């Protein structure tokens, strides 16, 4: 049956309408996709800002930790040395030459030790700069102080460690995680030995901290939501695209922090 000219004209009109409407859907799709892109860009900026805020917070916490160490050291160490020096010097009797000489030698020794301690403290004040020399150097320096307390036997192994490529932000966060874990061990673990290892798992940096303390219930502590606890360790590890694995038994606890290293 031949198609009439009217039918063809109607067909042309209908097809034209369809051809006219089709780009509309395409344009709506492009606009919608663009909106999603905008949302994605905003989320990316927010994430970057959150990271920067957290980094700033971390830097402040590292500084606070340094100041705390300095305060303890001034009070417990240098303060004691100087008090002892004062007592020694005030007990000097010039008439008794022999004892005086001994006391002056002792006072001299105490002052020299105080000077040494003050110099060490001065170095401590620049501990944040140490992070820029690398996580291994910063940890090593922190452990030196810990060793002085003689409360713990420290085992530090960094033979498998490869330095980061100038990523101070990640190293600062890692260093703060290390400080927090060590603080937790000092305060709660009742440990006598601490093992710290820096190495690699495939392409990732890995920090392992193990103690021989009394251990704790990981799930319970994780759910407690108090202060800068385990949750924060996990959160900050995730922020640097890494992981935090915490395991604990009555024979001790193990913290494994990993972070991508490019």
């Amino acid at each position, binding site marked *: 049956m031949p198609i009439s*000219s009217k039918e063809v*004209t109607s067909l042309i009109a209908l097809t*034209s309408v369809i*051809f*006219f409407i089709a780009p509309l859907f395409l*344009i709506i799709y*492009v606009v919608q996709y*663009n909106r999603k892109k*905008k949302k994605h860009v905003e989320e990316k900026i927010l994430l970057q800002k959150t990271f920067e805020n957290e980094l700033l917070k971390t830097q402040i916490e590292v500084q606070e930790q340094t100041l705390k160490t300095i305060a303890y050291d001034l009070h417990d160490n240098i303060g004691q040395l100087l008090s002892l020096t004062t007592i020694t010097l005030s007990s000097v009797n010039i008439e008794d030459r022999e004892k005086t000489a001994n006391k002056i030698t002792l006072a001299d020794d105490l002052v020299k030790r105080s000077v040494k301690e003050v110099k060490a403290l001065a170095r401590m004040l620049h501990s944040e700069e140490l992070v820029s020399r690398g996580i291994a150097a910063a940890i090593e320096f922190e452990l030196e102080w810990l060793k002085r307390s003689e409360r713990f036997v420290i085992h530090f192994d960094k033979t498998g460690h490869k330095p980061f490529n100038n990523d101070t932000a990640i190293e600062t966060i890692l260093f703060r995680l290390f400080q927090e874990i060590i603080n937790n061990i000092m305060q709660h673990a009742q440990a006598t030995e601490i093992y710290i290892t820096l190495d690699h798992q495939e392409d990732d940096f890995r920090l392992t901290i193990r103690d021989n303390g009394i251990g704790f219930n990981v799930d319970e502590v994780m759910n407690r939501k108090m202060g800068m606890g385990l949750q924060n360790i996990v959160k900050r590890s995730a922020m640097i695209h890494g992981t935090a694995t915490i395991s604990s038994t009555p024979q001790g606890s193990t913290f494994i922090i990993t972070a991508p290293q490019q």
Partner: protein
Amino acid sequence: MKLATPNTAIEFVCFLAALIFLFKDKDAAWRLLIPYLFLTFAVETLGLYMRLILGVNNITVYNCFLILECLFNSYFFYSLYKHFKYSAKWLYAWLGFFAAMYLAEMMYDKYQGFVSITASVMSVVFVLAALYYYYLKLRDEHHEPLLVSPHFWWVCGTLFFYFGSTVCNLFFDYMSTQSYADNRSVRYIIFIMLNITLYSCWTFSFICRYRQRKLHHSLR
């Protein structure tokens, strides 16, 4: 009064909008829209004048205008792609191809008919060019608010017009053979719709362009 049709009216309005909003534009492609739209309006009026007043065939006018239309739209698309480091060799290749096809069709029709095949191919190429622009926009990591983007609205208008006119172009020969009264209304209504959409989108794009330029100046 016969010359005042919806098509000429919307073309004139769009030309006025271009004159007001693009006169001080620094981009040559945008500034070129002013003479281009004026010529479009002039050609449309001349076509009507020849057909309705003089009663002569106006195909030659439209054949000549097709060259201008191709040159301008191709250049404008090229100026859009330039931001995406697009090579000019494709523009020259397309223009070369168009010229060859145009001449071949003209010679085939012995300079008598409208170059409908060339116009159809040109429409398809412009549709592809518009789609390619969207593709580039989707791939572009840099976010731009599209609803106030002059480029986006220019491309939208172009896509609506050339995609919508594809069927009419394809059936141009058929419609030419039919009686004027039968197909006039359909073809006429389709083109009125397409022209209104095209020039509305373009006018809006000129306003966006103007606002963008003003905002850019005030931020300096």
